[in-house]
């Protein structure tokens, strides 16, 4: 795992001929996360979510998180565990089960703060953070309740002759991002093989620290035999640590490696009605 600050030149000289080895354990990843952080989670809905990392986080002492996600059971499980101070989302869904039970429960009990945005605004906020800009202009959100529900949102007037007042979507910088990729090397290059790579790349560039779980660690030279090299979408320069966790997406879809485990997801959704909902939800992921 790459240290928070670069090692001195003297310290790295002996291994200067090899790229950094960022392999680590799930526990080491969770050890890098702190209460109060803003955390981005990759994937989309109930697809390619880093559920092994999220489960470990739910079982840790880290709390008071702001979670930024195209959300599914990742946000739901963290809500169930009482880890969420604020959720930043456009939707929360389990796909084949449209509504996320634990997120619903937390919302209906008024347990979490929210920044509910148009889902395109989420992309634009992450893009602004990725490009180190304060905002991205758009018309998305104007005229809708997104404006009234998020009083921090401001407009910006075009400096050109059109003079249009546009919504300035603020950057969504992340303290850390958790991503699950199909293949990775020890340096942290991550290869995504699913038909839709979602916005994992963007999460990686918007975050100070990026932790990958991967179905399989491979030699860098083996990327071409696993899939297109154009799908090595996460470059190691963005990555802090990488941990091999086969099945690390839990019951969420991780095609082409495995489809969603609908029966495990149904058990997770039913857990909200269990005597100990958190324990039952965690059990659906083990």
């Amino acid at each position, binding site marked *: 795992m790459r240290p928070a600050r670069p090692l001195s030149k003297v310290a790295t000289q002996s291994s200067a001929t090899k790229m950094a080895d960022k392999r680590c354990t799930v526990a080491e990843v969770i050890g890098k996360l702190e209460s109060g952080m803003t955390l981005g989670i990759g994937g*989309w809905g109930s697809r390619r979510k880093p559920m092994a990392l999220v489960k470990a986080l739910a079982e840790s002492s880290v709390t008071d998180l702001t979670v930024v996600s195209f959300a599914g059971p990742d946000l739901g499980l963290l809500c169930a565990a009482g880890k969420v101070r604020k959720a930043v989302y456009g939707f929360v869904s389990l796909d084949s089960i*449209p509504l996320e039970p634990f997120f*619903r429960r937390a919302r209906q009990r008024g347990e979490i703060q929210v920044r509910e*945005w148009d*889902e*395109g605004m989420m992309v634009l906020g992450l893009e602004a953070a990725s490009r180190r800009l304060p905002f991205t202009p758009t018309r998305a959100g104007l005229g809708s*309740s997104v404006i009234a529900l998020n009083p921090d949102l401001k407009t910006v007037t075009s400096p050109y002759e059109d003079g249009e007042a*546009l919504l300035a979507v603020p950057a969504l910088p992340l303290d850390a991002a958790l991503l699950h990729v199909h293949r990775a090397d020890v340096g942290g290059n991550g290869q995504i093989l699913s038909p839709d*790579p979602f916005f994992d790349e963007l999460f990686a560039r918007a975050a100070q620290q990026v932790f990958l779980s991967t179905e399989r660690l491979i030699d860098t030279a083996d990327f071409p035999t696993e899939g297109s090299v154009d799908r090595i979408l996460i470059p190691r320069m963005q990555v802090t640590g990488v941990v091999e966790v086969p099945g690390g997406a839990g019951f969420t879809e991780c095609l082409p490696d495995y489809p969603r485990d609908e029966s495990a997801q149904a058990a997770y959704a039913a857990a909200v009605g269990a005597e100990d909902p958190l324990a039952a939800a965690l059990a659906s992921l083990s």
Partner: protein
Amino acid sequence: MTATAEERCLWALAQLFADDGEILASPMGPEPQKAARLCRRFLNPDLMLSDGVAHLIDGAGAIEGPMNYARVFETLWNGKRHVLMGASQLDRFGNQNISCIGPHPQPKVQLLGVRGAPGNTMNHRTSYWVPKHSTRVFVDTVDVVSGVGTNHAEALGPANRRFFDLYRVVTNLGVLDFGGPQKSLRLVQIQGETDLAFVHEQTGFELVVSDQLAVMPDPPAEILHWLRREA
């Protein structure tokens, strides 16, 4: 061969994309998806459709390009798209809610979230499909404006609303456009077996009815055959 009410709805939904030319149709849910395929097959062969995963699929089933979520957003901001969404609530100006029921800080019922509805409505043509026309859906005031209605678009002014294009609402009871006063909903077609009084009863606001109210037509026999053949 007489069409069922459901088949007339599919035919009405298919008409929505008939004049769209070469754009991406984004039908949400099984009936809209079937209607969009019907439209491409019989009404608008130029229509582009996604497989719902990450690719554009042509009428013969061949992949004709990528359409992952990143491309969906770029396409919608670019405007060459017509979305056909559902609605948990819809008011007379076509404000749509899919976010939650009750006060947003602690809702009575949490739904999906606003999703892409705010951006969709501000950027390109938008229609709605309401499979069960009722006072639960057609309300006086929506709890959250997810999809922007005509009144809010008007209030934004001409620059912001340049690409706003709220088009039609199809329900199990009829077809509505925005030809009512102040661009409000207006019933323009009604299911043949439905009594107009019943539509009023199932609408939670005073429904404007076109003075040229028509009966929803049956699809032509050829299309009815196709509908019954297609799963």
